[in-house]
C-alpha cells in the first residue's frame, strides 16, 4: 500500500482527525468502522482520505461494533495493519473480541474517544468505556491533547507490532475535550514515519500457501502456558515502550516520559493523579494555586497497561497526599468510587512512606472539571495533610460542601 508523500507541516485539527492522520501516516491496510459519536469524526476523516486517494486501504463499514472488531481480528490475522475505533457503548458491544484478539496476539489498533456509558444517552466523556476492558490484554493509555494523540497512535503501532510484544492497543482520548477541540498538530515527514515504524509482519499470518490454524480448541492444561506467554508479552512490552519513546524523540523531536507526566511536583506536598484531557485544565489550576502558596502538583498517568507499578510507587511516595481524579466509575469497588484508586493504592502498598490517598469523583458524565473544583479538591487534600488522616475516602465533587 502506498500513501502520498507529505512533508512536515503544522495543521490545526482536533483529536479525532489527529488519530485519523496517524493512521494515514502509519499506512494502515485495513480500516473497519462503525459510527458512534464522538469516534465518528475519525471514521469520517479516514473515509475522506481513502475516497480522495490520500490513503490506499480497505475501508470496511460493519453492521455493528462486534462485527467491526471481528473483521479487524480477521484482517490482522491475514497480516494486515488494522485500524479501528469506537466510543462508549460501542466499545462494550465488541467486548467479546478483546481477549481473542490479544490472545491470538494480533496487534490491532483501536482508537477510543471516550463517551459515558448509557443510560441515558450521554455524549460526554467518561473513561469507564475503555477502562472496563483494561484487563483484556490490550496496551492502553490516554492522551491529553491532539498532538499527543497523534504521537501515541504512531507509538502504539510501533510497540504493539514489535515481534517481542505483538499485542493490540487501545489509544484513548477524552471525547470532546480532546476529540473535538482543535489544536495545532505537527505532522511529520512521511520519511520520518517510515524510519520510525517498520512494516508490520506477523510471524504466522493466514495464508493459503502456508496453511496454519488460528484459535484452535485446546485442552485445559494447554491454557496456562498460553496465558503465561500473554502475560510475558505484556510485561515484556515495558522495555520496548521505553525504547520506542526514545527513538520517537530522536526522530520527531518530541520527548515523552512513557509512563507519567509530572507537573510542578517539585516541593509539592499534595498531588493530583489523573489520566487524559483534564490534565490540561489541572495545569492551569495548579499554576494558580502555586501562586497562592499551595504546595500542589500533578502526576498524569500516560500508560495504564502495562501498569507502571514501580514508577508510581517511587513517584507518589514523595508526597503526603494523593488525590485521584477518577473520571470513571466502578460501582461498589474498594473506594465505592472509581478504578484508579485501587490501582494507585495497590502500587503504594509496599511503600515505606506511603501517602494518604483520596478518590475524587470528578469529570463524571463528561462534565468539565472547572478551576473552582480543582481548588475545592486541593483544599480537601490540604485538610487531610493537616489532619494526618483520612476522614472520607471518596468525594463526589460538586455534591458536597
Amino acid at each position, binding site marked *: 500500500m502506498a500513501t502520498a508523500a507529505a512533508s512536515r507541516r503544522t495543521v490545526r485539527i482536533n483529536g479525532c482527525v489527529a488519530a485519523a492522520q496517524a493512521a494515514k501516516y502509519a499506512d494502515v491496510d485495513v480500516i473497519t468502522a462503525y459510527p458512534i459519536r464522538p469516534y465518528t469524526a475519525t471514521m469520517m476523516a479516514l473515509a475522506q482520505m481513502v475516497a480522495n486517494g490520500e490513503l490506499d486501504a480497505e475501508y470496511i463499514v460493519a453492521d455493528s461494533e462486534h462485527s467491526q472488531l471481528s473483521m479487524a481480528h480477521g484482517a490482522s490475522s491475514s497480516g494486515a495493519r488494522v485500524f479501528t475505533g469506537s466510543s462508549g457503548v460501542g466499545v462494550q458491544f465488541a467486548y467479546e473480541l478483546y481477549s481473542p484478539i490479544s*490472545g*491470538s*496476539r494480533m496487534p490491532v489498533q483501536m482508537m477510543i474517544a471516550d463517551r459515558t456509558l448509557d443510560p441515558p444517552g450521554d455524549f460526554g466523556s467518561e473513561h469507564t468505556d475503555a477502562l472496563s476492558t483494561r484487563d483484556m490484554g490490550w496496551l492502553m493509555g490516554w492522551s491529553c491533547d491532539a498532538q499527543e494523540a497523534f504521537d501515541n497512535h504512531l507509538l502504539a503501532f510501533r510497540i504493539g507490532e514489535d515481534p517481542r510484544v*505483538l499485542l493490540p492497543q487501545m489509544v484513548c482520548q477524552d471525547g470532546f475535550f480532546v476529540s473535538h477541540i482543535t489544536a495545532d498538530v505537527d505532522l511529520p515527514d512521511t520519511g520520518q514515519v517510515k524510519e520510525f515504524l517498520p512494516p508490520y509482519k506477523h*510471524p*504466522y499470518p493466514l495464508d493459503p500457501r*502456508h*496453511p*496454519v*490454524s*488460528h*484459535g*484452535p*480448541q*485446546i*485442552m*485445559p*492444561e*494447554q491454557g*496456562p*502456558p*498460553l496465558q*503465561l*506467554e500473554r*502475560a*510475558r508479552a505484556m*510485561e*515484556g512490552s515495558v522495555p520496548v515502550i521505553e525504547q520506542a519513546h526514545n527513538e520517537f524523540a530522536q526522530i520527531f523531536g518530541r520527548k515523552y516520559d512513557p509512563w507519567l507526566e509530572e507537573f510542578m511536583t517539585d516541593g509539592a506536598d499534595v498531588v493530583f493523579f489523573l489520566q487524559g484531557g483534564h490534565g490540561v485544565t489541572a495545569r492551569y489550576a495548579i499554576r494558580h494555586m502555586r501562586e497562592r502558596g499551595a504546595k500542589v502538583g500533578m502526576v498524569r498517568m500516560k500508560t495504564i497497561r502495562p501498569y507502571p507499578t514501580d514508577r508510581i510507587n517511587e513517584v507518589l511516595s514523595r508526597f503526603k497526599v494523593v488525590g485521584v481524579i477518577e473520571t470513571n466509575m466502578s460501582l461498589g469497588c474498594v473506594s465505592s468510587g472509581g478504578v484508579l484508586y485501587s490501582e494507585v493504592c495497590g502500587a503504594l502498598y509496599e511503600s515505606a512512606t506511603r501517602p494518604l490517598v483520596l478518590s475524587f469523583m470528578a469529570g463524571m458524565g463528561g462534565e468539565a472539571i472547572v478551576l473552582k473544583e480543582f481548588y475545592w479538591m486541593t483544599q480537601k487534600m490540604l485538610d487531610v495533610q493537616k489532619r494526618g488522616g483520612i476522614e472520607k475516602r471518596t468525594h463526589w465533587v460538586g455534591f458536597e460542601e
Partner: protein
Amino acid sequence: MSTKGTHIPDWLKVPFAGITPGPSQEKGQDLFPTGNWRSIRPVYRDKMPPCNNACGTNEKIQGYLDLVKRGKYLDAYALIKEDMPFPSVTGRVCYHPCEQACNRGQYDEAISIRAVERFLGDLGLALPRDVVQAGPPNGKKVAVVGSGPAGHSAAYQLARMGYAVTILEKSPRAGGLNRGGIPDWVLPQDVLDREVDRLKELGVTIKTNTEVGKDVSWDDLERNYDACVLAVGLTEPNKVKADGEDKPGVVHGLPFLRDIGMGTSKVKVGARVAVIGGGNTAIDCAREAFRQGALEVTMITVESNPQEMPAVPEDLHDMLEEGVELLHGRAMTAVLGNGTVEALELRPARFSGAINASPITIDKNAPAQRFAVDNVIVAVGQHASLDWLPAKFKTERNTIKVDHFGRLGDSKFFAAGDIVQLGTGQPLMVVNAVGDGKRVAFNVDKVLRGEALRPRMLATDVIVDLNRMNMTYFPHFDRVKQDTLNPASRRKTQDEVILAFTEEQAVEEANRCFSCGTCNACDNCYLVCPEPCIIRYDRSNGLYKILVDYCKGCRVCIEECPTGCLEGVPELDFDTGVVRMETAFAITQGLHGRQADELKALPQRAAKEID
C-alpha cells in the same frame, strides 16, 4: 515482574499463541485433541445388504459389484468364487432372489445382478487357469454322491479345504440337474463342461456311470471314505396318475429334458404339444417343445392365472413371447387315443396348497373337455429314488432325514440339495442347492476335524430401509437391459436366448449398486469431516481410519454416508470411551499423550527425589 522466573515445561510447550500448522493428512491437528468432547463415536459397521441375504449361497454381491465398478474383474471373480463354484452357470440359470430383494427396486429398478455374475463367470472360464486352488491335502477322503448343483458345490468347497473328493455320478456325464434339467438355450453344454473341468482341475475325481445301490453299496461308502455327502437330487418324475399316462407319446418333463441334455433323446414331438404343469420345468419343456419341432404348444395348469404359477416371472414372460398358449384351471384326467396320443381329457381343477406339495381338487362332475394334441409332456414335479438308503434315514416325504447341520444322525453321512429341501418350503432352485452344499461341506470339515457343530447365532442386520441410507447421493438410472434373441427366430434354435453383457454394460450396471450398508470407499466421510480427522487408511478395500483423538462426534460423516455403513456408537459402549469420568481426558496422541507419560513417570521421579 510476575513472569520473571517462570518456566514452561517441554511437554506443555505450545506454539506461538497456539497457532498450529495446518492439519495434516496423517496427524490431523496434532496439538489440540478434541476427541474428549465426543459422546458418540462414528464406527464403520458393514451391514448385510438384502441381495447378499436373499442369495441361497450368500454371494457377497455388494462386494463383487463394487469391484466391477472399479474395473477389478479378477478380484470380483475371486470373491464370487468363495461361495459359488460356477458363476457362469448361475449367471444364466439363477432365479435371482437377490434382484427381487434389491433395495434399488424400491427406488427405480433392481440391479441386474445375474447379468453381472454371468459376465464374471464367463471371464473366469476364459482364464487359462482358475484363481481357486485346492487346499493342502489333509489325507482325508470324502465321497459325494451326485454331481448336480449341491454335489458340485460340496465337492468344490471340500477340495478347497484339502479333502480328496470323489464324486459318484450315476449318469454317463457329470452335471446332474444342471445338465439334465436345464435346456441348452439357457445353459449351453460347453459352459457346463468347462465348469466341470474346473472342478476336476481342483483334484476332484468324478466317477460317472456309478450308481449307489447298484455299483457302490452303502457299506462301501461307509468303509472307504471318511465322510460322504449325499446329493442325489430328485430324479424321478411325478405322474398325474391319469388314464393312459403310459401311452407312447406321453413323456415326463425331467426325462424329456435330461435325454436331450445327455444327447440320448429318442423323442420326436408332433405338431401339437400340451405341457401339463405350471412350474419352471414345465416352462422349459414347453419352450423346448418348439425347438424339437412343435408348431403349437399349450401349457395346461391347474392354477387359475399366471400369477399363481410357481414359476420365475421373466421366464414365463419369455415363454409367452415365444408363443406358448396358456390354459388355466384344468387338470388332465385321461390321455385319449388308440396306441398314440390323439387328445387329452381335461376337467376343471383347482390348485390349493404350497409349492412342492400340490393337493389338487378336480371337479369330477363337470363335463370333460377334449383337447386334441399329438404329444403331451407331464412336468408336475419330481421325487427321489431312495431304495438304497437305510430306512431309518428316510422321511415320510421320501426325502433324507437330516439334522440341523445336514448330517444323518451321528453317522459319517451328510445330505444336501433337493433331496433334503423338498417340502421344507425352500424353493428347489440351483442356488439354494449350491448354498446347501457349501454349508454341509463346512459341517463335514468341522466333524472331521473333531469340532462341535453349533448353530450359527449371527444376528444379521439386513439393511432394507432406505431411510438408513442417504439417497441424495443416488441419481436415478435405468437398469441396463440384457439383449435377447428375437422370439420368432429363437423357437427353432438351441442358441442362448439371453445375451451376455458387454464389459461396458456390466460396469454401467454395477455402477448403479447402492452398496447398501457397506463401505465402498466413496470418500464422502473423508471429504465432509469438518475436523478433519478421517484419513484414507487403505483405499483398496475401502476402509478409512477415524482419528478418535480428534473426532468430536459431530455426526456429519454419519449423516452423509450414502450407504449407511457408518453408525454413531455411544462412547459408553467402549471400554476406552472418553465420557467415562476416569478417562475423561484419556487421549493417547498429541500433547495429552506426552502429558500422560509425564504423569506416569511422576511417582517414580518423586520417589527418587525423596531418597
